[in-house]
């Protein structure tokens, strides 16, 4: 009997603890933010470890969920409150025209994404009829479509081979496909291969592949103070990084971890992106009356996905962009 009691006591305590937590809505709610392993999300860890979140009165928990196919259902089920992800990704999961809100921009891919191709493919237009590895429905697919439309081409003009971005890199390096839409470190590896070169990278399309913080519209309405505190902390973290780059690199590499846990690798990968700080955000968002470049990116994404029949609702940029917080 005593053995039974020692066994059951901790379980009972745990059950009780969970019960108490659930029953006490007055306790400060933790805001969970999910992101993947990527340099762009580094300043979130500066904000956490330098105490910006707590100074601004918000309790934040940072969680790694690599795959957007898992990240968004987790948000929709209210298991987390915010997602750091690219603008285009959120659109795919919307069941109502204003399900989600973009509250602040995080980083802009500035060479971190791109297309590697065989040397005889000299322009994006040359991709016509070639086999191109790309992850269908992902940010790479969005990027490819925008580039193609600038040349008056469509995805159906290519021979698209569907696989994840890193598998695409692998397939290109081993000459299984003529080109691959991928990201670092595969851009460098593709460039270094004997048959390959960098066809184009995201530095030519600023603002297109942009990470933002995304939350459910209903949640934002009820948590304006938390959102404002998070946006403020983000901008402070970026400012801190610009003033103390070396210390920040250590914090970010340790926080993001994974394949970026070495500050040297982190720093190298960081050259492919650009953070959005307080002022950048004001310009990038603009205002409701005079929308900034973000509005164009959202419109591009809506166009690409609805042409592919992937959108479940009709929507427009002004329904999804929350101009309020970046100007506070």
């Amino acid at each position: 009997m005593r053995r039974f009691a020692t066994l059951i006591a901790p379980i009972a305590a745990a059950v009780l603890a969970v019960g108490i937590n659930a029953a006490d809505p007055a306790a400060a709610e933790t805001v969970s933010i999910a992101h993947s392993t990527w340099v762009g999300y580094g300043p979130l860890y500066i904000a956490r470890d330098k105490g910006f979140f707590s100074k601004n009165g918000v309790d934040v928990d940072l969680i790694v969920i690599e795959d957007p196919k898992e990240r968004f259902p987790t948000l929709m089920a209210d298991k987390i409150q915010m997602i750091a992800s690219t603008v285009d990704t959120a659109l795919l999961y919307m069941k109502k025209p204003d399900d989600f809100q973009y509250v602040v921009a995080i980083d802009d891919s500035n060479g971190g994404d791109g297309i590697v191709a065989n040397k005889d493919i000299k322009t994006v237009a040359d991709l016509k009829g070639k086999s191109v590895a790309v992850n269908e429905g992902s940010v790479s697919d969005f990027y490819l479509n925008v580039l193609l439309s600038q040349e008056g081409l469509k995805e159906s003009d290519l021979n698209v081979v569907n696989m994840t971005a890193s598998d695409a890199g692998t397939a290109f390096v081993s000459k299984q496909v003529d080109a691959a839409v991928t990201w670092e470190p595969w851009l460098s590896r593709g460039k270094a291969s004997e048959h390959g070169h960098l066809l184009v990278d995201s530095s030519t399309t600023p603002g297109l592949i942009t990470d933002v913080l995304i939350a459910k519209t209903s949640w934002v309405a009820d948590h304006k103070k938390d959102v404002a505190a998070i946006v403020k902390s983000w901008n402070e973290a970026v400012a801190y990084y610009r003033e103390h780059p070396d210390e920040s690199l250590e914090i970010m590499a340790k926080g993001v971890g994974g394949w970026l846990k070495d500050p040297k690798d982190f720093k190298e990968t960081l050259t492919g992106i650009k953070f959005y700080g307080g002022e950048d955000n004001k310009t990038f968002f603009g205002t409701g009356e005079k929308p900034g470049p973000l509005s164009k990116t959202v419109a591009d994404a809506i166009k690409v996905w609805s042409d592919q029949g992937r959108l479940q609702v009709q929507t427009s940029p002004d329904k999804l962009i929350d101009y309020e917080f970046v100007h506070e």
Partner: protein
Amino acid sequence: MSWLDAYTAPKQDIPPRVYLAISTLVAALLMALWCLLSYGGLVREDFLPTPDAVVRAAIAGIRDGSLLVNTAVSVGEIMSGFIIASVLAVPIGILMGSFKVVEAAIEPVTNFVRYLPVSALIPLLILWVGIGIEEKISVIFIGTFFQQLILIADVSRSVPHDLLDVSYTLGASRRTVVTRVLIPATMPGVMDTLRVTLGWAWTYLVVAELVAGNKGLGYFILNSMRGLFTDRIFLGIAVIGLLGLLTDQLFKAGRNWLLPWAQDL
């Protein structure tokens, strides 16, 4: 209450009517639970689709032909991988279970390989095998072959020694013992192993169609995950489940037809 007594005796047959009634009842209960949760509004529609949403997804898939194409592509990949694996695993497995020399040579390697997660091998498969249908068949093959080897070796190992001893006593040669006693004695177990591992082959479908998939039920499910189309995810799962149920019945019928003497084994 004599019927209750009769139906609850261990390892006793029950009338086919009763068997069918119980199976149907459980299936109906599950359907009723699904209807209750979805139509009753107990679970949000984008988390659990209603049965009619799944049926409508199925009709749409049949209309544009995509469901049939996806199913055909997947069945082709699964059967190719499974048949290649089985053709090799059955003889090698029987030898492994009966000859210690073969066991010593193959079993340790097999036990090493069969624990490897196939999804982790995908980048290597791209490099070595490519991105065509060979890659998908390889995934299915790796996922099933090594498991089959171990199971079939066990089947052949558990053939009673008495059977062999009796045959020797009756004057059979070693060769005759292997071909006329050992191999036939393993067949019921081999059929059961194939039936079980075909189910395992199906579980590798999504992994197999991760790379360069643009048709197939695994691709269909993955693609429906982006955007969380739960009705299509359910449809894909339902088709795979029904195919599983069908092949299982075919295997059972095949076993009874090919090995009528082994119905109770």
